[in-house]
């Protein structure tokens, strides 16, 4: 799988007459508070278009409104205002069409929890309209593709978190739909399993399937997405290819310093960096132009401040830096 470079354009449309895979216009949705508590505005006038055949990401920290948005796309929640079309069908008017157009993977699948893996996948396939024989043969292929064939008799409850998530992914992939809406499909997966999911998605994309993928993992966003919408507090703060988004902050780098004890406040370089550092525990994170970063690091490592420095890294910009540069305020995006 290739990462989209800065020059990457949205993938060509599957056909000029094909409708957008998802069209979201001005979608607003609040969660009603319990017992008279103030409603929380989870989506605030979101507009987005997902083109056919692309892997489109929704990136943002917890609470940004990503899950609320995808639950509206799949018809499980109704927007307070706005309109959502899926493959040309207005889901806000008739949400029952959504399940006949798309497959959805939620953050958890409690309905499948006690089922053996094979039966969970088979049943989901039958409920998507496959015959029992078709569902069984597709199930076998999918479990092998995701590398969980040997646990097909075990209930999901009894599996490790990673294997359970792979079983959820298999349930989402059975009964091929032209649109997959996946809410954090790789959370809790080890790198090998994560690559298995990415490869499975890539094969479907090659066959023309559109994928909408929620993530708060920056690496995943940069590796697999054709385009990404960055969400913060219910709004879209940017939407483009990962490459173009990163180009917005390409003249800057991130310097991370981890201190052993209290950093020497009288060191002029430390004092200068302290002004713009985002501190979490012993870690300082500073975004600054390349040249300045190089000089600051040189002075730190050559001077007495090195004594109290435990570790340091200098990194090129990631989507996390884009998020922060655009005014994002939460800091729980995952880097690994």
């Amino acid at each position, binding site marked *: 799988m290739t990462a989209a470079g800065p020059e990457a354009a949205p993938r060509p449309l599957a056909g000029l007459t094909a409708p957008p895979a998802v069209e979201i216009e001005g979608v607003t949705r609040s969660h009603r508070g319990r017992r008279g508590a103030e409603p929380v505005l989870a989506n605030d006038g979101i507009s987005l278009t997902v083109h056919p055949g692309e892997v489109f990401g929704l990136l943002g920290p917890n609470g940004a409104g990503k899950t609320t948005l995808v639950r509206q796309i799949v018809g499980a929640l109704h927007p307070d205002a706005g309109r959502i079309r899926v493959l040309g069908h207005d889901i806000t008017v008739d949400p029952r069409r959504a399940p006949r157009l798309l497959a959805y993977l939620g953050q958890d699948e409690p309905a499948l929890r006690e089922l053996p893996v094979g039966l969970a996948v088979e049943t989901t396939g*039958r409920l998507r309209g496959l015959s029992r024989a078709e569902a069984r043969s597709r199930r076998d292929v999918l479990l092998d593709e995701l590398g969980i064939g040997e646990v097909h008799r075990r209930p999901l409850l009894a599996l490790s978190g990673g294997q359970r998530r792979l079983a959820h992914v298999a349930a989402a992939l059975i009964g091929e739909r032209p649109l997959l809406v996946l809410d954090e499909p790789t959370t809790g997966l080890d790198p090998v399993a994560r690559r298995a999911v990415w490869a499975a998605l890539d094969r479907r994309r090659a066959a023309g399937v559109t994928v909408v993928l929620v993530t708060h993992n920056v690496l995943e966003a940069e590796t697999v997405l054709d385009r990404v919408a960055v969400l913060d507090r219910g709004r879209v703060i940017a939407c483009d290819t990962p490459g173009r988004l990163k180009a917005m902050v390409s003249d800057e780098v991130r310097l991370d310093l981890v201190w052993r004890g209290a950093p020497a406040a009288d060191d002029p370089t430390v004092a200068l960096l302290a002004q713009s550092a985002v501190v979490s525990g012993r870690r300082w994170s500073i975004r600054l132009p390349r040249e300045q970063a190089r000089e600051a690091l040189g002075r730190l490592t050559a001077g007495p401040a090195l004594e109290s420095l435990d570790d340091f890294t200098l990194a090129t910009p990631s989507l996390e830096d884009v998020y922060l540069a655009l005014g994002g305020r939460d800091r729980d995006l995952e880097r690994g």
Partner: protein
Amino acid sequence: MTTPLALAPGLPGAFAAVYAGQVSRAKASRGPLLFVATLQSVGILLLLRGVVDTGDGVTGQQIVAGSTVLVVAFVALNLLAQRFGALRGDGGLDHYAALPVPASAVVLGTAASYATFTVPGAVLTAVVGCLLYGLPLAHLWVLLLVLPLAGASLAGIGALLGLLAPRPELATVAGQLGMSAVLFLGVVPAERLPLVLQAVRALLPSSYAADALARALGPRVEITSLAPDLAICAVAAVLSLALASTAYRRAVRR
């Protein structure tokens, strides 16, 4: 220009798939609860055998019938209310909301699987009851009518309670209370209850199932005499399952 919709499974296909999944789920997780349900009813049979004068025969019939229907209430009403309450509370209904399944298939398939699992415990309770209270075993074939009808009507109520309860804990409480009502009002003969409770008893479909079974355990059974009670049970089953399907539709699209 729109993309054509994929085919959706019909009601029978979706029902069969939901039912098969739920039965398998139950095999894995409901065994111990089923044991408890049966033990509770057999315990009540033993307890009342020791403390109640059942010389008139009718009291014994009512106790055996009430205890048998109680097994159904434990699983189909109480456990099903908890199941739907939990699914609603933890987002499990999203799974079904994103599948092209008729609401009635999810409710009926789940209800039918819970009702199925009451059968071994209910039959065992009835047989032990008849032996303990000296009642004829010959008429136990009536269970073939009573169990499905009691199961369907109580499962409908259980599903409805679970889907309407705003929080899973309230679904559990409602299921427990419903089961207690079935226990108390089904085991105690109607004429020994205060008027208010007689009215409540008349509202519970399980009472009609218990009454039909009680009559069947007498020395002579006329099937026609059971018909009115069983008919009421059937109507209650249709009504409660229809209401539960409506409640399900509302719960999956908010």
